[in-house]
């Protein structure tokens, strides 16, 4: 049985690090893991998606239509962009932060404010919260990724200490304290 996840957001928000944290934790837990990252052009402020799949034996590194158990979204409309990858009744953990894409900036399109209601109406379990504020409380807007991972981790069923051990493996020592705080804030935010 393979579990499929997606970490989506805007290039530069740190989805790579989030996926490496998850990949490390899952490896430590003894799963077979595949993670597919995005590098290069699409990183430049574009929509980015990272796939994480785990189970006894995982083949494909990517997630396609109707396969995804959970999307972790760093931005509001990015959660909606990939919704067709979700299984019916799948879960979305989403940062309510809005980052205007270029068509909105230029006035060619409107930012769809109510996009999460559209997902809920289709039976998607939406867990929306303001991760940016928690990241700022932790000390840096760049910690949004780890706040979101904390929120996800709190419902994942692995002890917090094991997550923190994985965090230590993927984050440089200098940045560890602030990211620990960010992780804790995300963890505690889960209701």
């Amino acid at each position, binding site marked *: 049985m393979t579990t499929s996840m997606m970490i989506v957001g805007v290039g530069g928000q740190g989805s790579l690090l989030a996926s490496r944290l998850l990949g490390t934790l899952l490896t430590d837990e003894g799963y077979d893991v595949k993670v597919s990252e995005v590098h290069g052009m699409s990183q430049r402020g574009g929509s980015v998606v990272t796939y994480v799949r785990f189970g006894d034996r995982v083949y494909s590194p990517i997630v396609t239509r109707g396969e995804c158990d959970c999307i972790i979204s760093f931005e509001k409309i990015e959660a909606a962009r990939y919704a*067709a990858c979700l299984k019916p009744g799948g879960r979305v953990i989403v940062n309510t932060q809005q980052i205007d894409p270029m068509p909105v900036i230029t006035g060619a399109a409107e930012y769809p404010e109510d996009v999460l209601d559209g997902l809920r109406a289709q039976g998607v379990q939406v867990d929306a919260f303001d991760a940016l504020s928690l990241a700022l409380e932790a000390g840096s807007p760049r910690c949004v990724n780890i706040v979101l991972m904390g929120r996800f981790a709190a419902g994942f069923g692995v002890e917090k200490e094991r997550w923190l051990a994985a965090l230590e493996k993927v984050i440089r020592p200098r940045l560890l304290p602030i990211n620990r705080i960010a992780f804790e804030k995300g963890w505690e935010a889960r209701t």
Partner: protein
Amino acid sequence: MMKRLMIGNEAIAMGLYHGGLGLVSSYPGTPSTEITEFLAKFDDLHSEWAPNEKVALETAFGASLAGLRAACAMKHVGLNVAADPLFTMSYTGVNGGLVICVADDPAMHSSQNEQDSRHYAIAAKLPMLEPADSAEAYVFAREALALSERFDTPVLLRSCTRMAHSQCLVETGERGEVPLKAYEKQPRKYIMSPANAIARHPLVEQRTQALRAYAEDCPFNRVEDAGSEIGIITCGTSYLYVKEVFGDSVSILKIGMPNPLPEGLIRSFAAKVKRLFIIEELDPVIETQVRAMGIPCTGKELFPILGEFSQAAIRRAFGMEELPAPAAPEVPVRPPMMCAGCPHRGMFYALAKHKITVLGDIGCYTLGSAPPLNALDSTLCMGASVSGLHGFNAARPEYAKKAVAVIGDSTFMHSGITGLTNVAYNATNSTVIILDNSITGMTGHQQNPATGFNIRGEPASKVDLEALCHAIGIRRVRVVDPYDLKACEAAVLEELAAEEPSVIISRRPCVLLKDVKRGLPLRVDPDKCRGCRRCMGLGCPAVSMKNGKARVDATLCVGCGVCRQLCAFDAIGGEEA
């Protein structure tokens, strides 16, 4: 033995390292870049960024000739640049093992075309290996060096974006100690004059026959037997999607060595199954050869020639039902764009404002083609802006007053110098703008000969771009700060008006570089803002309109001040405002 998650590129690097690699020379290119970056972490081998792929491959050739195990890594289009040495190195063969890692980009995540590098292996008569994931990549890369020496041939190691940038668990061993092989002068092997090359060509054909025999039971090709109903021949990451869809329910011939193909193995596999499918990304390279063997099969009539495969694409091709899923709400597209504070933006704004025809090049600045700047007229390949402008101006001399080339510092070092030499030598009145952001940007900040640092970040000889342009024969060379809009406009208009070729160096380091000091975010005074949208013409992600007024996103703004220069109402100010 240790086991951990690695992206394909790290696994390739580890495989080469443990295979006794002594030198790597590469030019960055997504999705191949990290191979060389990982190798640069080791002290006991020579690593470098070369100015381009041709130089890189010739450097690796020299090291191999001297008896060292050598490699280079490049993206698919980089192999076009390196094709000249590649084809003749097939004739010379190697002394120390030599591996060329080439990374294709199906779906063009970060590329200008979707070419299939397997054609090069066939055309240059070279063995090619293609792993499906990181675990295989480690083993294949390590073995490729030994294979190279065993058959006296360069070996191509093909990957693709999905392999290069996907992690899986990899079991690694230890670095093997491979002593430098003896060097002796062998003119008939290494001087490819016609007489010697004529003598070498039959040896190349003999080598291909030997490799064909080897392919029949080499460790890279394998059969997974699961009955006679359906047989699938597949290669690279396509194998993973096939397994995802069919598990162990179909027979599979997994090709890990796409050139030369194992004809006997293919014939016996095909004979055992009722229906034979060939599932390969991009071109029908295996399929064409299987059909030439007279074996009936199904391939590209079902599986697309375009883009990247997935388990969904395989299911669709076999007519299986799509998995149920929620409908995705309509949301605006989010294309990549130049970063807030990108030093390219000011120059592009000046060019767009004066409706200049702009021949572009390969790099972050290709993003200047997007709205609202819409600043580019063409993008072809590395260096084509400069040589293309020369041809354009030769065809339409009046455009010398209204057309420019834009090229980054790294791309200029790669392939722009020769084009600029042609501008001077064959005298078109061309204006070339070098967008010098002091780094190779798009591929993720690699050093180059114009930055003053080597791959390890150590101080290195630095090309003096002004002096270089002068030496080529360009007399008018000027430097401008792209954060200064008036200076950009003046430089462009004056150099276009000049009656001789000129170079404008638009110089400011990439704002994402660690050492670049960022300014405080700017703010809009809503009382002064008239909502004229002039600042929106920059296409800066930090500037947007809310309720008829401009707004600056403080989390994105780096205070470059370009929007401030545009505001006619003095509504955009600094923190003190």
